[in-house]
């Protein structure tokens, strides 16, 4: 009952998170990765100590790669982002890097190239458009699906009301981790890559599952009240449903969080940012479904009760 009683507080808290997230996106921005904008990424792993970033920046500038941005990555690797390189430009970039290091043994190269991604601008913009469509399509299908499975529950909230709330919540559920990522990326140099979009989409799936469990309980309790001819305030029904499902909501998010922590600490480098975004999203999403979904139903119910 605690959450229903203090629902105004939880709504304000939500508002606060939302404003903070939007502000973070507005201030830091979500920098799209080269998969979306087009461009090239070269990653080289040095066998001996890597040169200083500013040295490499100068070397590349002198070789004509004035737009190159050099960053340290991993323990002894360097990643370089530039415009989309042709295979020839790629070769000359590598030879510029080779010449920049005075190798103690001329027969060995000072580094090995561990990654080279190059994406033309048209491929990039296509992916960006697809990503936006995918997020929209997922939200819409989820809303329709919820409205469909709750079609028999029309009192006191019409079934599309459940669908609508779920979509509003889902929007919050992905805006908050996106805001977190904007701040995180600002300090670590991470970029919003396709896996970031995947994380948001997977979160949509996860959070909706969470909300469904609670709404399913509301649905069941409403039915029970009707069968037993019991009068109960809608607030009470919702409060009871939340209490009854809280154990499950928390335990499931604990298991998912444990799996994600395994990815963050032991998994591959490429999936680390993905797991961090997911982890924030799962925590927010669980909070969101416990603390917001049902309380949001109450005002809607009141509105419809008046009619």
């Amino acid at each position, binding site marked *: 009952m605690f959450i229903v009683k203090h629902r105004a507080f939880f709504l304000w808290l939500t508002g606060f998170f939302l404003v903070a997230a939007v502000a973070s996106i507005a201030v830091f921005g979500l920098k799209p990765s080269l998969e979306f904008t087009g461009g090239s990424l070269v990653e080289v792993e040095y066998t001996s100590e890597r040169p200083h970033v500013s040295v490499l920046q100068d070397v590349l500038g002198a070789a004509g790669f004035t737009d190159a941005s050099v960053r340290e990555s991993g323990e002894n690797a360097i990643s370089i982002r530039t415009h989309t390189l*042709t295979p020839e430009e790629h070769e000359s970039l590598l030879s510029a890097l080779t010449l920049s290091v005075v190798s103690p043994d001329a027969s060995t190269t000072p580094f090995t190239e*561990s990654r080279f991604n190059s994406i033309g601008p048209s491929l990039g913009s296509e992916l960006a458009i697809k990503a936006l*469509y995918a997020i929209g399509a997922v939200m819409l299908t989820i809303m329709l699906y919820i409205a469909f499975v709750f079609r028999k529950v029309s009192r006191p909230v019409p079934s599309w009301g459940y669908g609508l709330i779920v979509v509003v919540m889902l929007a919050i559920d992905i805006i908050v981790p996106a805001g977190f990522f904007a701040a995180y990326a600002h300090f670590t140099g991470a970029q919003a890559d396709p896996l970031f979009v995947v994380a948001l989409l997977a979160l949509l799936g996860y959070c909706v*599952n969470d909300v*469904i469990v609670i709404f399913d309980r509301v649905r069941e309790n409403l039915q029970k009240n009707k069968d037993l001819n019991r009068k109960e305030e809608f607030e009470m029904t919702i409060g009871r449903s939340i209490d009854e499902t809280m154990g499950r909501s928390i335990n499931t998010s604990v298991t998912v969080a444990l*799996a994600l922590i395994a990815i963050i600490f032991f998994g591959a480098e490429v999936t680390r940012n993905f797991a961090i975004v997911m982890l924030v999203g799962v925590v927010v999403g669980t909070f969101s479904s416990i603390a917001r979904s049902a309380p949001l139903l109450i005002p809607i119910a009141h509105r419809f009760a008046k009619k």
Partner: protein
Amino acid sequence: MRFIPALGILIIAGLLSWFVLSTNGVDNRFRVKLGLDLAGGTELIYTADTSNLVTDKPGALNSLREVVEKRVNLFGVAEPLVQLEKSSAVAGDVQDRLIVELPGVTDVKAAVDALGKTPVLEFKLVSGQTDTGAATFQATSLTGRYLKDAQLQFGKGQGSAPAGQPVVVLNFNDEGAKLFEEITRKNVGRQLAIFLDGEVISSPVIQEAIPGGTATITGTFTPTEGRDLVRNLNFGALPVPIELSGSNSVGPTLGAVAFQAGLVASLIGFGIVALFMILWYRVPGLVATVALFIYVLVTVALIKFIPITLTASGIAGFILSIGMAVDANVLIFERMKEELRAGKTPHDAAKIGFSRAWPAIRDGHFTMILSSTILFWMGTSLVQGFALVFGFGVIVSLLSAVTITQTFLNTILPNENRGAWKFLLSSGLHTK
């Protein structure tokens, strides 16, 4: 007799483990296929310029794929993959793409050079002369895309070719043969020039209509030149010009490190989820862990059997699905606890708990399947790798939650809740 279904599941699990463990040999066809990001290699994305194609675009693109495949094989790569792809219609003009995956190759430039040279073979009729005496040409519809193959032969001293003179024999496919016959029939007496990459290499006079789809080029080339020409024609003449629009290459060490990390994370992820479930839910938690283990076996077997190419993002999807797969069990156990508290026998509690939890399990899994379908449709290999593994994982988890956990609980739960069972069936920090 109620242990028979559980025994059946255990036997199936045993067979699955045998399948998963015994099919890891290098030559085994059920060995897990690793994506380029884990195995190391290069992916090249070409855009095909189909603006000049008027008829039979799919045919031309297919023969493009075949020609590139031949070149890739010539390049000497194990298990290459060449496939056609259309760009998404949502992003404006639909482009045709050719994706080439070269496992183990990290020299992008060498690969691009070997594949990307686009010798274009054309046949043009000499239509006249300019004022300076240079020939002018009139294009015909006959091009390299109708070429079946080319062979190098040596003249036997008959006809136009002197003995020992290299002769390149072109064999057209059925369509090409028809075109060639038609062109030669209509233009007897005219010169038909053969162009390679926009250069005339030979322009013989048409003596008579040539049926059968075979043409010979008797240029003045050395045997070496003749051999190169044949090779270029066989492996080189692209029916459609292509342009490199993207490439991804991952070194073998980076890939191996990522794969190793993915494996370790999977094991640890499974381990801590299992530990949590057993500590919190006790006997049902143990049952859920066994079910989760079988879930992992089934998913891995599916990945091997279908086969699904495993990428770093696919492994992340797999680990995530381990965390989510227990959700159905958690739902059932929480419901079971409520029924136990209401005084039901453990056996009935499991039964009722399951049927109460089912609508939520069904709806939740269904929306996750929906989202992974949409993710798969979104497209790039990175995203698809995740969506495929995650989607299959969700489907398998739905089945395992329904069948495995329920069967085991049915088998081991007692009819009365007393003694040690009271502790074993409660959860969390409670002792009874």
